[in-house]
């Protein structure tokens, strides 16, 4: 049993009571909703004559079905339009704030809440979206939930939850140039597996984690769910406080000092007890790419596609399925794999630091996306888009042959018009390489960092970004 960890402290302070079932009734400090997983929850409330208990603790935006090109209403997709109307009506009739397209604050829910300062250390956060784990970067305990649980949070501001074990993932050393938070988390998932985290909260810690800025920390926590963990978090520190200071919903004046004191108090104690500790050395990690159909099927850019014999016997069928679906053979190099589409965006890698680094790499390379590749950049929010344009990043992308789009989830899950076609291969900064994930039931996805996607787009094939980064460092 873990003790004195951030998870234990936050869990205890938010425990309302132990339910007759033995589970915990847990108070949720921040509830985020979007258009895909909330309409049925509001319908259930109406059926049961229930109202929203704390409307000011729920914040809504729209992201999954929003088109990133023509955003004029009504949307060409009638079903998407119906979902937009549903969330507009449900939020207005229940007194819930909605950050809608065009109001300057819309975007991917896991990008919007942090940039508005809504997500804060020590909170419990819930959202009907598995990538809610992202908010753990602030030292919040953040759970992805289903629609029936969205109903529960709307009606009661609580969830019925079983407890979790806590695994500390200690990352020592420093990431090498050209290796990013995305590579780090893909590497961790590769080693621990897609179900390695089942039953656990992941605490990411150690010098390599502390050295990340908040956006890198969000990238790491975002993918905790891909490792099977119920949530992932990083203890809050000065980096966290500096990020929050001055944001719209961050406390000010005397309240700021009170907040910093409480936020510091909820961090794991130096003598905290963990159920499990795993250590990684950041300096050994290469740019990491997925080759298969689960986020754990990854490899370093210098490596070749693994053999079935490299895996436990029970994984043999899955590995065979991955070879067939991806058209890869054991022993083949991943470098040099041709791509058709390059996607930069998503709740994993759609933030300013991602776009700045992507633009920098494009400039270092100097080339243009070849005709056979479709490359596009989807900023994570309207705020990210505005700031990127102020910095001239949009012009850099367009100059190098990338399309510059409006904010949304886009081709991470392809619920909007952005989709792969047929068996296209996508170099993607998103978080899932599942079969059919990017909108074509036979489409193929290679997950990688924004820098690696840029160089893959410009070269037309998967390419190690490190030589370019070294060139940039010596220039």
């Amino acid at each position, binding site marked *: 049993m873990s003790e004195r960890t951030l998870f234990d402290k936050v869990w205890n302070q938010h425990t309302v009571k132990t339910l007759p079932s033995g589970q915990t009734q847990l108070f949720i400090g921040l509830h985020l909703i979007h258009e895909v997983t909330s309409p049925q929850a509001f319908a259930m409330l109406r059926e049961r004559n229930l109202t929203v208990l704390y409307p000011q603790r729920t914040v809504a935006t729209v992201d999954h079905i929003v088109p990133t090109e023509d955003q004029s209403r009504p949307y060409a997709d009638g079903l998407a339009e119906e979902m937009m109307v549903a969330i507009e009506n449900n939020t207005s009739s229940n007194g819930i704030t909605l950050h809608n397209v065009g109001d300057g604050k819309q975007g991917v829910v896991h990008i919007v809440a942090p940039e508005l300062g809504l997500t804060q250390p020590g909170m419990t956060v819930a959202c009907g979206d*598995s990538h809610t784990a992202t908010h753990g970067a602030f030292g919040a305990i953040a759970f992805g939930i289903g629609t029936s649980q969205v109903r529960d949070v709307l009606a009661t501001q*609580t969830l019925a939850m079983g407890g979790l074990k806590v695994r500390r993932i200690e990352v020592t050393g420093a990431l090498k140039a050209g290796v990013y938070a995305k590579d780090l988390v893909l590497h961790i998932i590769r080693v621990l597996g897609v179900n390695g985290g089942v039953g656990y909260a992941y605490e990411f810690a150690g010098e390599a984690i502390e050295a990340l800025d908040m956006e890198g920390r969000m990238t790491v926590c975002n993918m905790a769910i891909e490792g099977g963990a119920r949530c992932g978090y990083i203890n809050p520190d000065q980096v966290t406080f500096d990020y929050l200071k001055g944001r719209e919903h961050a406390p000010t004046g005397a309240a700021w000092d009170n907040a910093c004191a409480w936020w510091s108090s909820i961090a794991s104690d130096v003598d905290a007890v963990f159920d499990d500790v795993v250590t990684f050395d950041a300096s050994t990690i290469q740019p990491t790419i997925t080759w298969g159909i689960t986020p754990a099927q990854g490899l370093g850019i210098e490596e070749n596609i693994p053999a079935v014999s490299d895996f436990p016997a029970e994984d043999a069928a899955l590995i065979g399925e991955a070879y067939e679906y991806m058209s890869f053979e054991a022993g083949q190099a991943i470098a040099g794999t041709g791509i058709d589409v390059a996607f930069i965006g998503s709740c994993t890698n759609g933030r300013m630091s991602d776009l700045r680094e992507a633009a920098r790499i494009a400039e270092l390379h100097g080339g243009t996306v070849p005709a056979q590749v479709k490359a596009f950049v989807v900023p994570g929010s309207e705020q990210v888009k505005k700031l990127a344009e102020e910095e001239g990043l949009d012009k850099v992308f367009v100059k190098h042959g990338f399309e510059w789009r409006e904010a949304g989830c886009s081709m991470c899950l392809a619920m909007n018009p952005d989709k792969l076609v047929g068996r296209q291969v996508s170099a993607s900064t998103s978080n899932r390489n599942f079969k059919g994930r990017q909108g074509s039931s036979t489409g193929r996805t290679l997950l990688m960092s924004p820098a690696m996607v840029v160089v893959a787009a410009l070269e037309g094939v998967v390419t190690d970004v490190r030589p370019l980064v070294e060139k940039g460092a010596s220039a």
Partner: protein
Amino acid sequence: MSAVTHIKGRAVPVRGNDIDTDRIIPARFLRCVTFDGLGEHAFADDRAQLKEKGETHAFDKEEYAGANVLLVNANFGCGSSREHAPQSLAKWGIEAIVGISYAEIFFNNNIALGIPCIQVSPEEADGIQTAIESDPNLDVAINVETAEISYGASVIKGILHEGVRNRFLTGSWDATGMLVEAADEVAATAGKLPYMNGFQK
């Protein structure tokens, strides 16, 4: 809500580890404001792809029509939190799932629908799948209280943790009712959280 104590019927095996919720219900079917009609789209892309290869997915096989117990392998339901996945299975007719392990959000979404997900060992999962594949008409019965699964002449004892099991047995698998009762205690907990009053001391 009514208690879920016994599930009786026939089973349908869907083999494979790490079957994610995108595969259970592809994202294009999430463009909806109700869960109605999702049943026919369960495993839509997997089914279509097998058909193209001249094979048949279990959900399309005549002999499994009307089955209500889904037999799976490890880490079933990983990935997206979409409740559309268990909803599509439920609307197809699934009332219980037996497998080696489940992704947690999927597991919890099933509790909310009154669908127990019972854990068994890899050998037991393979054993019951093989038995059903050779005789799809075999009667299957699940006792939620003991987590025992009987099929034909065989009985295996699975795992369903106490807190979860109690919610099925007491009819509190739909959590809203019991959570609503604690409104005063919720307010008391909220009152102690410094961020709830904007960190004013």
